[in-house]
């Protein structure tokens, strides 16, 4: 009898503490997470200006983008950017992580520490701006020393987008999350494969890749989501130029919302972007299911 009562008391205390611990977080989740999202739908169908009360305008804000060439340019740019970034830099961290495992333990340690020495991200972008400089930049300096013609890098409309992706290609490194997974694969699997006469590629193909496949799928989704929302790099390196060749959708949202104060239009564009990203993610999951054999 006493035990039962005690249990009940415990349960009550647990419940009380649960809410005590949870409430601050839930307040933040609701006020700064969900409330702006819901407000977003309200803003996207209204016209908000400083002087008048908000006015309901239906889907006008969404229709605006149907024949807005800036929107199509920006959309094409971010699709191209995401494609380029995934095509050029997605596999490299995986390859480096796999190869890194071949080194001796202490070499791995030293390399990892050197590799992950961080730079503030603004500093990382600014140094590339200086590398790309047409008159005094290091890249043109190298080209010049080699006797090659110099390039216009960020100011060449055909090259500009590639320039945004290039840092990721040149500064290759292992993906931390891949290393963690590869490390967890037992060595016996490789030894067994070896006894059966499997070569290097067969081991990668049949043992390593199937195990990092789910993580690759997640990373691919993150790469798409991140690529479609690119802002800082073009904003700082090219300011969307030359001739809007690197103008991204989020830059357009920023310009609409905070330069021309068209909050309704900006939010409508943000919602359109959200649905495009969602569609891409769904498409990606259809094409590349996380688990092939289960």
């Amino acid at each position: 009898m006493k035990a039962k009562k005690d249990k009940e008391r415990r349960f009550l205390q647990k419940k009380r503490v649960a809410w005590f611990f949870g409430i601050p977080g839930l307040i933040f989740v609701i006020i700064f997470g969900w409330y702006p999202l819901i407000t977003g739908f309200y803003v996207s169908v209204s016209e908000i200006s400083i002087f008048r009360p908000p006015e309901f305008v239906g889907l006008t804000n969404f229709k605006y983008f149907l024949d807005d060439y800036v929107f199509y340019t920006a959309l094409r740019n971010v699709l191209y950017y995401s494609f380029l970034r995934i095509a050029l830099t997605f596999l490299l961290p995986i390859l480096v992580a796999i190869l890194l495992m071949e080194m001796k333990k202490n070499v791995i340690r030293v390399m990892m520490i050197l590799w992950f020495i961080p730079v503030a991200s603004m500093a990382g972008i600014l140094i590339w701006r200086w590398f790309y400089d047409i008159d005094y930049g290091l890249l043109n300096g190298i080209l010049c020393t080699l006797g090659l013609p110099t390039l216009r890098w960020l100011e060449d409309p055909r090259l500009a987008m590639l320039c945004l992706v290039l840092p990721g290609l040149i500064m290759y490194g292992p993906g931390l999350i891949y290393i963690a997974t590869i490390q967890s694969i037992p060595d016996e699997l490789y030894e067994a494969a070896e006894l059966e006469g499997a070569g290097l590629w067969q081991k990668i193909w049949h043992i390593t890749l199937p195990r990092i496949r789910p993580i690759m799928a997640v990373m691919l989704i993150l790469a798409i989501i991140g690529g479609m929302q690119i802002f800082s790099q073009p904003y700082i390196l090219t300011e969307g130029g030359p001739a809007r060749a690197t103008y991204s959708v989020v830059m357009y949202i920023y310009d609409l919302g905070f330069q021309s104060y068209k909050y309704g239009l900006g939010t409508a564009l943000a919602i359109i972007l959200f649905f495009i990203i969602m569609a891409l993610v769904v498409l990606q999951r259809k094409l590349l299911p996380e688990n092939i054999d289960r």
Partner: protein
Amino acid sequence: MPLIPNVGRDTFKIKFILIIITLFLWMGVFLHLFPVWYMFITSIKPYQETFKFPPTLWTREPTFIVYKLIYRITEQGSNVAGGGYGINYPFYVYLKNSFIITGGTMAIQIPVTALLAYSVSKLYTFRWSRFLFLLCIGLLMVPGTVSIIPRYLIIAHFPFPTRQIPNIPFTNIKFPNYKLINTYWGIILPAGFSAFNFLLFKGSFDAIPDELLNAARLDGASEFSIFRRIVLPISKPIFAVVAYFTFSSAWNQFLWPLIVLTKNKMYPLAVTLYRFQHTLMHQRGEMPTDPASLALLNQGIGINGLMGMSIIESIPVFIMFLIFREYLMTGIKIRGLK
């Protein structure tokens, strides 16, 4: 070790492959460190030398004048404070802003997120915890930029999205509302909960066996002391990882401070550096027009100043990396996304 067998390591072919791999990896390390070196060497070059072509990787006459910007700015510069682009205050002002924003974000986000994750993981009944989990994780589905304008509008007259503030029912008094634009709260509060860190915390707390907690409960420990005495010590690695992530994302954030803050005096480093480079790159070749940057140029500070500031901005991130290095390398296994 796993791919290339230990037994055949001395045959010529395998040795050759290993050398190629080693070179490839060290090359990657080198390419990562080189920009930092170049940043540093540019920062100690005299102004004229930064415009030498082709650029040098070394300097004959190093000068550390750039680093004096931390505590000092030219007299002309401080006269035009508040106007124009670039840096109008000594650099420690911006450094301090960055520390306030980052410190505030860490102080609120980490405990709030951890406690919520703990209670969702261990304390609620099954149905509640499922519901709250989805409520938190749903935010992860929506990219941050989608709600950037409504978030700004809410911050502008918190907690109402428009200027039309309703009256308190049955009275003529308007609801209280706060303008968080141009305050650090406007940056810190929206970052009070992080869905990604929530996921990390929950994954880690889920791994703590229930039996352990129940045994402590049977011994008469209160829920608070269970959290403090058992959960916290076990979860040290995940706290370290989250602390590092929170620090670097708060330190590096750029778009949101750019929107919320409009006073030069309040900018964090990232925004200051951006505006400084904006001025520099736009008036290259011609004399600058605004007095602040003219004064800087007269002192011999241009692109070398920008690079010096970049180095300074990176130092705190680097220190945090050193502090949490051990946990980042080993504790990263906890980062499983499921």
